[in-house]
């Protein structure tokens, strides 16, 4: 049975996740449109990762619900998993396998028919400009190439929504540009909706259609980047100004030990 097509591909209603008394995500509601590039912006510990983990079925919400392409994230997790792709913040390709094997693993886990696998992998490698490296071990790759491989693994089964957690943390500016070039292409050619989290203002500013500013588990404001800047009332406002205006917080003073350690480790590995 085809699920009812809602206008929003991601529909979040009063989603809440509590760990004991602490609300990592508290009563969040918003929608993401089909084909949108949507940024979830906030400092470390704002609840971005927890929100994504609930949407990708890794974490059960304490309260509220959400659907992805009409599938409930709790009751129809199997359908949700077939609809989405996920690129975690830390490195999720296996360095001890070749690029081809890394893609083959996911092609088979996603049940891409045997006859289509090889062409699909070939297309993916070409799409990411990695066709010359198919049989090289991934541990010999540069940071940008690793990130592209991870995106390749997550898009093999043509997901409708691609979730990325801090996609360019630790990448140099040129690799960042290249990664976003490919993501924009992906949206253009396949209409993939892209939902990503970031603590990098410039990144959110440059690539996203709309931004949700998160702080302390809540969505402080949602809108296009120009809208958010305008609302601050300053003529030359940056997104950082907007962030401070809406959250009353300075971005750099937040984040816990575990988040920071993980982020720095990722930077070290990719760098």
């Amino acid at each position, binding site marked *: 049975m085809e699920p009812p097509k809602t206008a929003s591909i991601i529909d979040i209603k009063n989603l809440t996740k509590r760990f004991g008394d602490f609300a990592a995500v508290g009563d969040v509601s918003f929608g993401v449109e089909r084909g949108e590039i949507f940024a979830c912006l906030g400092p470390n510990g704002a609840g971005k990762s927890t929100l994504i*983990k609930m949407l*990708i*079925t*890794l*974490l059960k919400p304490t309260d509220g619900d959400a659907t992805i392409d009409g599938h409930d994230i709790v009751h129809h997790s*199997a359908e949700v*998993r*077939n609809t*989405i*792709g*996920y*690129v*975690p*913040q*830390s*490195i*999720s*390709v*296996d360095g*001890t*396998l*070749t690029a081809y*094997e890394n893609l083959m*693993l*996911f092609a*088979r*886990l*996603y*049940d891409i028919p045997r006859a289509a696998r090889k062409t699909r992998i070939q297309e993916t490698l070409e799409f990411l400009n990695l066709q010359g490296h198919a049989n090289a*071990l991934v541990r010999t790759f540069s940071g940008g190439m690793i990130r592209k491989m*991870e995106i390749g*693994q*997550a898009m093999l089964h043509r997901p409708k929504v691609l979730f990325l957690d801090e996609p360019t943390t630790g990448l140099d500016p040129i690799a960042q540009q290249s990664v976003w070039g490919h993501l924009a292409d992906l949206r253009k050619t396949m209409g993939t909706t892209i939902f990503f989290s970031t603590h990098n203002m410039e990144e959110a500013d440059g690539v996203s259609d709309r931004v949700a500013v998160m702080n302390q588990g809540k969505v402080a404001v949602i809108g296009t980047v120009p809208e958010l800047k305008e609302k601050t009332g300053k003529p030359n406002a940056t997104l950082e100004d907007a962030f401070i205006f809406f959250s009353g917080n300075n971005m750099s003073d937040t984040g816990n030990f575990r988040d920071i350690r993980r982020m720095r480790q990722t930077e070290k590995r990719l760098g």
Partner: protein
Amino acid sequence: MFHYLYETIKKSWVLTEMEARKLLHDPTELISRAVQPILWLGIFGEALSKVRAIPTGGFTYLQFITPGILTQSVVFVAIFYGLYIIMDRDTGILQKLLVTPTPRLALVWGKMLSAGLRGLCQALIVFIFAIILGVQLNISLWSILGVIVIVLLGAAVFTGISMIIASIVKTRERFMGIGQVITLPLFFASNAIYPIAIMPTWLQVVANINPLSYMVDGLRALMLTNTSAGVGFDIFILAVVALGISMISAWMYPKVVI
């Protein structure tokens, strides 16, 4: 139900095949793991055969401990295998696998089979070295098939236990600590290097509930005697324990990502 089982077996196989490819890309791990069983057989075994203090039921001491050392080397691979769950979590591979439609049980069976594969490589090394030392072993098609089944099941049991521990302790440091603490007692409280009959009563109780004893018992019957009496029972016990532990593990290990 059948569809789920089919999916689980298919995906376990995919994951195991990728582990095998990793070993082919870099077999140094297999070589370094070969050292320990060789030392046990070549030094400990040779030295204790001179003592003749341990009743070994008509076999030479080297014959007696060869199945024990094989068991030990398989169990030591498996009992640390849960570390991969923590490492895969720390990278991001585990999160990515959990977001695919792969059944949770397939990830457990995949790890169990991968450990079993490494265990079989260990078995081959122990067999070859035992033959070099002149240990008389009963080698037939049936005994080899039996050894393969017991190694795979034993590896599954201890990999499952290891994954459960990993999902409780969640960090490498704590996991390594616990791994170190349990491996030697597991080995010594079994019939691997001396018969259960010579142990104090309380230790006999422990040895009898230790799955490692059932591995040794089955392997000893297969590798040393022509009678396969009791092997079916050992395999049955290991299979039931492996199945139970894999279910508990499939339920527990996804929590490691939270």
